[in-house]
């Protein structure tokens, strides 16, 4: 009989702790624990329709988690992903509202709309980046502020300049013409193109971080910004680049939500994908190989949560509680040395870098 490696025991221990904590929460919430878990995890997997639903959450989640890998690599706490998604959505919708796109072939117009989405997200992220690098405002604070600002921008657009013909409605802007919608699977709005883009972005980012000099430079900046400065690695520029890449990919997710899922700009279009992506990435301690798994896991939970009220007359917000408990259990397991492999890397990240201003405003 083979002895399981210590690392896998640790991961199993973390999973066990997470499961136990979740069951305890369900027990105290008065829900039948096992049935609830079955609905939560089965609800996103039990039919083609629900699988497609799962995938429609998986795509933006996976893109945002990929985006976060870039900023975490540079030691940045980018919690402004929500706002960056929103601005991407605004830019994409805005581009497609221009009088001109009709003149382009629809495919080209869609590509340009997604490019605009990337630019929008990148710009929004750069605001936080510039504040961090030149203004010594920590990105956690600016990110939070910019998230609210982005929500304000969408509401203003939906109720103001971009309101539906005749009457403004919180249900969103006028739907996009058919030609500007990304093709879905079997008529369902979960676009293949989005999935391909997300996978490609993931491969690209992992390659950049792991295999290129740029990725090594980001790691150096995370490890020691002072030394990076002395070695002429231009840490400020690297931070801005990481921020822009992250924002761009989050913006792309927003663009895909507009063109592939909702087909219009709606309020709160970011749908908490930005925050959930942070949870997903933290849960696997930034280990890239596990990121798709974590994202899929959360996508299943999101889809399953919708089933809770119907199946068990439980509020779907219970799913949010369970997500939080799971991540906390994983982090706690890691920090307490139970999940050694998962915890070690993150330990440095969480414990090692308190919020500090960008070094040297010289």
């Amino acid at each position, binding site marked *: 009989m083979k002895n399981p490696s210590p690392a896998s025991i640790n991961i199993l221990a973390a999973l066990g702790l997470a499961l136990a904590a979740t069951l305890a929460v369900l027990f105290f919430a008065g829900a039948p624990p096992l049935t609830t878990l079955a609905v939560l995890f089965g609800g996103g997997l039990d039919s083609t329709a629900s699988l497609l639903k799962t995938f429609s959450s998986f795509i933006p989640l996976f893109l945002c988690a990929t985006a976060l890998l870039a900023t975490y690599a540079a030691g940045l706490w980018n919690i402004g992903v929500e706002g960056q998604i929103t601005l991407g959505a605004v830019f994409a919708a805005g581009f497609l509202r221009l009088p001109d796109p009709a003149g382009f072939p629809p495919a080209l117009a869609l590509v340009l709309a997604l490019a605009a989405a990337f630019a929008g997200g990148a710009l929004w992220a750069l605001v936080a980046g510039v504040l961090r690098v030149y203004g010594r405002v920590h990105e956690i604070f600016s990110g939070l502020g910019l998230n609210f600002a982005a929500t304000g921008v969408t509401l203003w657009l939906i109720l103001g300049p971009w309101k539906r013909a005749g009457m403004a409605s919180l249900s969103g802007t006028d739907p996009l013409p058919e030609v500007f919608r990304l093709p879905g699977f079997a008529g369902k709005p979960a676009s293949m193109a989005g999935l391909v883009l997300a996978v490609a972005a993931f491969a690209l980012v992992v390659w950049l971080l792991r295999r290129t000099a740029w990725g090594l430079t980001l*790691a*150096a900046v995370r*490890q*020691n910004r002072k*030394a*990076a400065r*002395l*070695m002429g690695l231009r840490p400020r520029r690297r931070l801005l680049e990481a921020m822009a890449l992250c924002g761009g990919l989050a913006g792309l997710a927003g663009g895909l939500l507009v063109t592939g899922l909702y087909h219009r700009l709606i309020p709160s279009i970011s749908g908490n994908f930005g925050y959930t992506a942070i949870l997903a990435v933290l849960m696997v301690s930034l280990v890239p190989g596990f990121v798709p798994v974590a994202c899929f896991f959360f996508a299943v939970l999101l889809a399953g949560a919708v089933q809770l009220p119907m199946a068990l007359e439980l509020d779907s917000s219970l799913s949010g509680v369970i997500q939080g408990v799971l991540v906390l259990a994983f982090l706690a397991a890691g920090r307490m040395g139970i999940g050694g492999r998962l915890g070690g890397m993150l330990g*440095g990240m969480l414990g090692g870098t308190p919020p500090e201003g960008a070094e040297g405003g*010289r």
Partner: protein
Amino acid sequence: MDVFLSHITKRYGRILANDGVTVALKPGRIHGLLGENGAGKSTLMRVLAGHVMCDGGFIEVDGVRHAGLTPGAAMGLGIGILSQDPLDFPPLAAWENFTLGGPPRTRRQARDRLAELSESLGFSLRPDDPVERFTVAERQQLELARLMDADVRLLILDEPTTGISPEQKDILFGILRDFAASQGRIVVLVTHKLPEAEELCHEVLVMRRGRLVGSFEPPYDAGLLLETMFGAEAAKAATEPEITGAAAMAAVPVREASPASRAPVLAELADAAFSDEKSALPPVSLSLRAGEVVGVAGVAGGGQELFLRGLAGLARMRGGRYVFDGTAMPGRGMAAFFTAGVHFLPASRMEEGLFPGLSLADHARLGFPGEGGDIRDLFQRRFVDRFHVPNQPTAPAASLSGGNQQRLLLSLIPDNTRLLVAESPTRGLDVASCAQVWEHLHALAARGTAVVFSSEDLDEILARSGRILVFFNRSLVADTPAAGQTVRGLGRHMTGRAVPSVAESPA
């Protein structure tokens, strides 16, 4: 109050900061504690104030033996310390700072008590202003008022006159004299500055390399004090008559004295005023020539740290000119200095120079981005064969010893560096590592690199440089060829005792 420190020993890793120090502090006296940087003065005082626990020895206060004190216990015994950087909370108001650590008081009580103490001490402190708006002297006065309020009977002052004016110093010294004179209280003054110790102290204790090496009573022989502070070789040099000029050239082996004067000017500072968040230097004017080796001396906080950083492009320039190789540098970023061939070797190697979690090979990749995929080969040739970095390309930098950290940093200095600014390049290194560092720095200089380095070891500065800059009290007080200089002479400049006629050799 009677305090006896017996065989205090404190070890930080491999460094023995205090090595069996025994000191008796007697009532009614002001004791001066002198010594160069790293001599162990502050450690000893922090043991006494309970800020650190000693590994061996004990403290006896009024006949009661304590194996170690905590800050609270020390305060309870009436031992208070005025740190070099006041231990206050800058955003809080003066009265709030005053109240912290003491008995609970209302705002009115605290303000009244502070006003009363200020009155008797001759301070004028605005009680409602946040401490961050105070000058260094005012922060010190507030701290002093707090200690007086706590009724300390043993007052320790760590370099209290750094950053305050001569008038403020006189006020402070008056207070200290009165303090020690009443009710058998004790003052310990930790300082680098000889004149202050001479002016104030009833007894001067000298520490060197963690040991107590001498104790003196007035009248003080300044020469003897300096010798004791700066060590045996220094003592030897100091017993010789001061020699200058041609005799010195013959007596002291001089390095690169001649090529430097003929070499082209590499960098020129004209009224260059450097500053950082904490301090500012008055304008400095000097020029550096290719191939020159310049040693920079000064006690901690003397301003040489900021000067070196300014030279390397790491500090702001408030004014003046800095021309490097024909290019005006002010306003340019670190990257421009880097491109121009200026390299900075930091004293805190791991904190500022290396990436603890990255492998040695990754350091090579970062340092030589042009090498492309052939990094293993470069690592072997340059890092291992030439600089004797351990042949473990995948090991993280965090695993390196101090000497190997410096070897890694040396390997990362590009060969075409024009100006190398090295902050204490041999600090904490063993003899073999020191020799390797100097072999490389001199090899760089021989190829035309200007090397500017600082050191806490005056013997090293005298032995290794062709020209010496001395900083005292945040300004450049001497710029002189190394030839003919003695430890004693440098020590005088560093401690503000230089007689102007001896000070400047014609430059």
